[in-house]
């Protein structure tokens, strides 16, 4: 049985079916991310004075990742335009770039996640707090590259005008002196919980989009020989999804990294 309206527009909508479908799907995605953004606003506004983190994420790395995603958006639209101009080899080139950029984005994001998972806050029995990146861990002692603080509040707003910039040095702490030790995973506080939720969901979209684009670049590209218009429409649909992923990141970057 032939699937109807894969190329020609359906009379009542004026669109081929996949296009109407992807826009309905994107509408649901807007609500999904919208709900998480509203959660972020509520958590941030509800945070106690001085306890919402600032400067916890690496801005240069986040900026590079933003530029990577924007560049992948232009290569995606160029891939589609190449097909419209009947230039299949150019399409292959541009979409290969898109896939590489998607992998770069995920790679950079993984590095950022790893950085958080090896970053520890250690509360000592004498009330002092050690904060830094894990160097080594044994059964009886822990070594981090970091610093001590007297008040936990000092760890939150690292961008405040009066924020203390601590020298990082290697600190070795006996396990017997540790009251609590926790890394900067999503369980650490509400900021990291919403950070991992938002960026994790976004990263899943990047990975999902990259798999689809990878399929259309590889085995799925055979359709170009038999039904080029239908193939071009598939590229348009995957492109719309990809641009939406870029669009979400345009808001995530300033909200999580800069503000």
């Amino acid at each position, binding site marked *: 049985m032939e699937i109807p309206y894969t190329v020609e527009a359906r009379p009542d909508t004026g669109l081929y079916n996949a296009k109407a479908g992807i826009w309905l799907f994107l509408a649901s995605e807007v609500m999904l991310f919208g709900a998480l953004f*509203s959660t972020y606003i509520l958590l941030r506004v509800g945070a106690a004075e001085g306890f919402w983190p600032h400067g916890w994420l690496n801005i240069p790395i986040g*900026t590079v990742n933003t530029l990577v995603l924007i560049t992948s958006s*232009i290569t995606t639209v160029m891939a589609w335009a190449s097909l419209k*101009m009947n230039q299949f080899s150019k399409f292959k080139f541009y979409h290969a770039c898109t896939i590489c950029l998607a992998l770069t984005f995920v790679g950079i994001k993984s590095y950022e996640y790893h950085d958080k998972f090896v970053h520890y806050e250690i509360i000592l029995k004498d009330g002092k707090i050690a904060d830094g990146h894990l160097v080594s861990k044994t059964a009886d002692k822990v070594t981090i590259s970091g610093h001590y603080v007297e008040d936990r509040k000092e760890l939150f707003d690292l961008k405040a005008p009066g924020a203390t910039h601590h020298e990082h040095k290697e600190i070795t702490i006996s396990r017997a002196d540790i009251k609590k030790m926790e890394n900067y995973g999503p369980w650490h506080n509400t900021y990291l919980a919403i950070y991992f939720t938002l960026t994790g969901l976004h990263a899943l979209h990047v990975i999902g989009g990259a798999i689809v684009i990878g399929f259309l670049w590889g085995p799925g590209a055979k359709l170009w020989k038999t039904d080029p218009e239908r193939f071009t429409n598939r590229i348009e649909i995957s492109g719309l999804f990809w641009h939406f992923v870029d669009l979400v990141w345009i808001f995530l970057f*300033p909200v999580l990294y800069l503000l």
Partner: protein
Amino acid sequence: MSDHSADHFSEHIRRYLYVFYALLFGTLITVGASYIRFGNHAVNIGVALFIAICKATLVACYFMHLISERKMIYFIMAFTAFFFAGLMFLTLWSFGDPPWNTVTH
């Protein structure tokens, strides 16, 4: 496809490149603005969100072709915008009832 089609798309490609440059510029402006202290943090938030909205509009209008789409898509987007705005207003209204004002016995 015809040469006419190629000419037509080369014009589009020029437009995509302008949008791309604008997005790169917008990103750098966003980062730069975050280092400027406008006196009130709310102004910083407003500036960053304004730039983000401009960038998102460019992506939606040109890369996603919303600037010249069918009525059906505008119809879907209008519904989405309505419910998204409703969601955000619900969030704003909740500020009138913050947890620290809640009396518990």
